[in-house]
């Protein structure tokens, strides 16, 4: 789904439900809802009774999955208005979680990165968390100069939303920051930045 060969980018291997987990927490953004809904035939009542589903709508094709998710009748269904509120809720759910809880994350890459930050901050090992990329290829990018993060970047170069430099989006990803690296594209000759190209639609 995403361009291959970026060594520092995580592999998003899919969120097939783990039948052995005692509790499941799903963090889903936009079309990420479909990563769970697509598994419907395999979901047993026991699994759903042990599931907590956190959802935030996003993107043109990811807006109205709340009814379908609620219809799965998980133990808990919660919909938040923004990613930020979902992250807050996720932190709460994880702090109350026990050892045999599994977290699943699906959505755009920036969303996965931010949920992963919450989880690893709380001591979870990133390699134990299934993830699935769904939705646009938009990138979350950190400006290497001012360190400000810009979400939902679709073009390269783009203007840093913090310091205003024209940034080239590099294929180098930091899991700790949950972001790609942006580097000033016309640093050597200011004013020579190429036209922005929509690379991450």
């Amino acid at each position, binding site marked *: 789904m995403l361009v291959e060969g*970026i*060594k*520092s*980018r995580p592999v998003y291997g899919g969120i097939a439900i783990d039948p052995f987990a005692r509790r499941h927490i799903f963090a889903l953004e936009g079309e990420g809802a479909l990563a769970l809904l697509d598994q419907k035939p395999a979901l047993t009542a026991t699994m759903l009774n042990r599931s907590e589903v956190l959802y935030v709508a996003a993107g043109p094709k990811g807006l109205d999955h709340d009814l379908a998710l609620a219809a799965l009748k998980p133990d808990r269904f919660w919909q938040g208005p923004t990613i930020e509120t979902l992250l807050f809720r996720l932190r709460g759910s994880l702090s109350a979680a026990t050892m045999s809880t599994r977290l699943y994350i699906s959505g755009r890459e920036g969303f996965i990165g931010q949920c992963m930050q919450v989880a690893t901050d709380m001591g979870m090992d990133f390699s134990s968390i299934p993830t699935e990329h769904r939705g646009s290829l938009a990138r979350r990018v*950190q400006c*290497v*100069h001012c*360190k400000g993060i810009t979400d939902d970047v679709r073009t390269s170069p783009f203007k840093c939303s913090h310091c205003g*430099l024209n940034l080239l989006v*590099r*294929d*180098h*990803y*930091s*899991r*700790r*920051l949950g972001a790609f*690296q942006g*580097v*000033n594209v016309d*640093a*050597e*000759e*200011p004013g020579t930045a190429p036209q922005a190209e929509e690379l991450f639609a």
Partner: protein
Amino acid sequence: MAIVFRQETFRDDFTYRNSPGNIRRFPFPFDRDEYMYSVNMEPHVRGQAGTVYESLIDVDEHYVAEMQDRALVLKEDPLRYQALPHMMAAQWDTLELLMEEQAAGYPEHFTLIRNGDRWRWINRPLGIDDTFTFGDRSTLPYDPFEYITRQAQGDFCIVDQRDGNLWMDAGMVTTQADWSLDFDIGMNFMEWHGPVPLAHQIGVFDRALKFLLNLQLGKPTRRFNWTMTINPRLDTSPENYHKWGPDRTTVTPDNVGEKVHLRVELQSLWRLPRSNAILFVIRCYLISMNELVTVPKWARRLHRVLKTLPPELVDYKGLTRYRDNTIAWLSKHDDGAPTSPGIFPD
């Protein structure tokens, strides 16, 4: 013999120069007339007097000025030093290693007196005389890793070993060739090497990682890396790229000699005793083209290396804008005569 430390700058007026003696001991990295990535590692053992291998942690005439430049960088951007919380044992390991090696190599400049856990460290060039308790962070003005790397030339990373990989979990990085510690901290060996072209495909990193996972205590290893820098600037960080990037447009056929510098990293890797982490030392040396061509063999060879460098490496190392001017300038110092094997001057 006591080193005479130069007063010089690596920014603004760029007064950095190498003395004639220091040019002769410059670690020229090319042992042949062409260059490509390889697993170029050899045991880090002491070598002859008058070379950078004289001591395993090399201190030279630029020591004091480099430490001043580091302090300036850290004042502007404290994130150039970072250590994740689980690295404290490795920090003390590093402090011990750097104090012992500097004191052993340069007793006239550095002295370490150990009395159980009470240690006294005397650093004469920087005017430091501190007594502290080894293992007790509160007895030092900084983290032990920051404390000692404010007193040691080169950049430093400490990599933790777990799950069959190496993790960049601490670093002091103020003299880097365009990579960001703040971005890379926490990554593993393959991840932080992600941007390097060609080397992944030819298996260099697989083999290098395997080798390092088996690195033994007391048997450090070393390798060279190199690039080029306009003006003798130590801080070529991506953070400040918009400040130093324009320098690359200032090279003309007439000023190659003073502007263009070969930047060599003598990298050494040391297994640490308590933490089982690895200390990665990136000791950076700069030499202007004017200085370099005083050694005819190096002038000929660098000319040939630059001419035949694979385009991916030209691009990755950022040489594109000034490579042609530099090759043309160096060609006047290359008569086509064969060069002798090895890196040392004839």
